[in-house]
């Protein structure tokens, strides 16, 4: 008999890949210094929805640009390569994150709402703390719960024993997942992102967002995302599934980032204050 962990990992193979144009655009963007700009414009133009979204982003209220831009070329220059990456990811993985997640009892759109909250929270937190965070911070925040889609939707695991263990013994939900399934949503999510060709920096954030102290690389982004996830849960953005508030925030992250009550509350206010604008921006 194969155990649940192996069974879940095996299921990853049957999950659809992200659209081919998207992975081609990733590859182009990854070349960075030798980026073929003309080729990038041509690739994006192939995808009308993506083009619309990039224009919308470039003119979005969230980033507060003054002048309206109508050409794709200008839009790409205005928003910069890192942001294009955000939009490509939002456009390709957004629809996956918007579905309902049966195993976590999340209605359609709720996981996406939470994800957008985390992405905004991480970005706003970096801004308030004056941390010069890498450009993929927003995207890393947006993707943190993709593993819940795998466990709660694609694999459709029986959540009952996990919920029981977590709530009766008051242990964090991700710990309960590991005990019952031999794997948690962060690990399975990281595996899926890796399979989709998402850059390692982002995969690492997904992998360690509930155990940031165990991550051995530069902790800046994982710390910001962990704190933003906590604050989004506190705010109730995206509602609560079966896992509820059953997670343990790391006090080390608070210390490392220098979080204070005022900072935390400011970020919560920013999340709720900006969420509509960002939805609008990310909706094709």
């Amino acid at each position, binding site marked *: 008999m194969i155990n649940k962990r192996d069974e879940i990992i095996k299921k990853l193979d049957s999950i659809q890949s992200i659209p081919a144009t998207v992975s081609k655009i990733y590859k182009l963007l990854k070349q960075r210094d030798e980026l073929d700009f003309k080729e990038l414009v041509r690739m994006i133009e192939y995808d009308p929805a993506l083009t619309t979204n990039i224009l919308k982003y470039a003119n979005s209220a969230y980033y507060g640009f003054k002048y309206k831009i109508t050409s794709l070329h200008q839009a790409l220059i205005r928003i910069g390569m890192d942001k294009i990456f955000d939009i490509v990811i939002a456009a390709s993985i957004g629809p996956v994150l918007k579905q309902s997640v049966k195993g976590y009892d999340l209605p359609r759109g709720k996981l996406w709402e939470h994800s957008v909250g985390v992405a905004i929270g991480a970005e706003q937190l970096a801004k308030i703390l004056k941390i010069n965070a890498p450009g993929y911070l927003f995207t890393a925040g947006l993707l943190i719960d993709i593993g819940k889609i795998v466990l709660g939707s694609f694999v459709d695991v029986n959540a009952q024993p996990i919920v029981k263990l977590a709530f009766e013994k008051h242990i*964090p939900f991700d710990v309960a997942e590991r005990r019952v399934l031999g794997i948690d949503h962060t690990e399975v999510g990281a595996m899926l992102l890796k399979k989709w060709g998402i850059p390692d920096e982002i995969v690492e954030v997904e992998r360690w967002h509930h155990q940031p102290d165990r991550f051995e690389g530069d902790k800046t982004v994982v710390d910001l995302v962990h704190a933003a996830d906590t604050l989004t849960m506190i705010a*109730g953005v995206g509602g609560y599934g079966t896992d*509820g*508030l059953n997670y343990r*925030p790391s006090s080390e992250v608070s210390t490392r980032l220098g979080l204070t009550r005022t900072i*935390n509350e400011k970020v919560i206010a920013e999340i*709720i204050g900006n969420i509509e604008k960002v939805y609008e921006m990310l909706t094709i």
Partner: protein
Amino acid sequence: MIKTVDISDMKISDNENDILVTYSLGSCVGVTLYDPEENIGSLIHCMLPLSKVDRDKARKNPYMFVDTGLTKMLQEMYDRGAKRKNIVAKLAGGAKLLDKKNIFNVGERNIVVVRKILWKNDILIKGMDVGGSKSRTVRLYMENGKTTVRNKGEENEL
């Protein structure tokens, strides 16, 4: 009619057919005010305790914060004809994560500020279900002022 109160929102009613409801109270706090004699009721869903953290946002949406939100809610109740001596308050929410060191104590502070403002206004708190790590849904039934809290499919009267 069912009237949904979003995050940082308040609804008021004097129609006995209405049910006011708010979902997903985590660390946020939900407060119901009800005047049984005038049959006026309201429900608020506040996210943060004090508006001084972001005055600009408090001006745009006073219901985001307990201090500005609850004060405005009381005013709306009086404007509709509710009497201070009749109003009963019930509250729910203020949960937290598994946060032993209490680093993120927004929930607790929300409850403290609610109690302080109600006490200052001489309003009686008749029921509450606060704290812990659970999320809650609150309903105010306008036909009789019944207030319930729901968690994991179980609905209890406050």
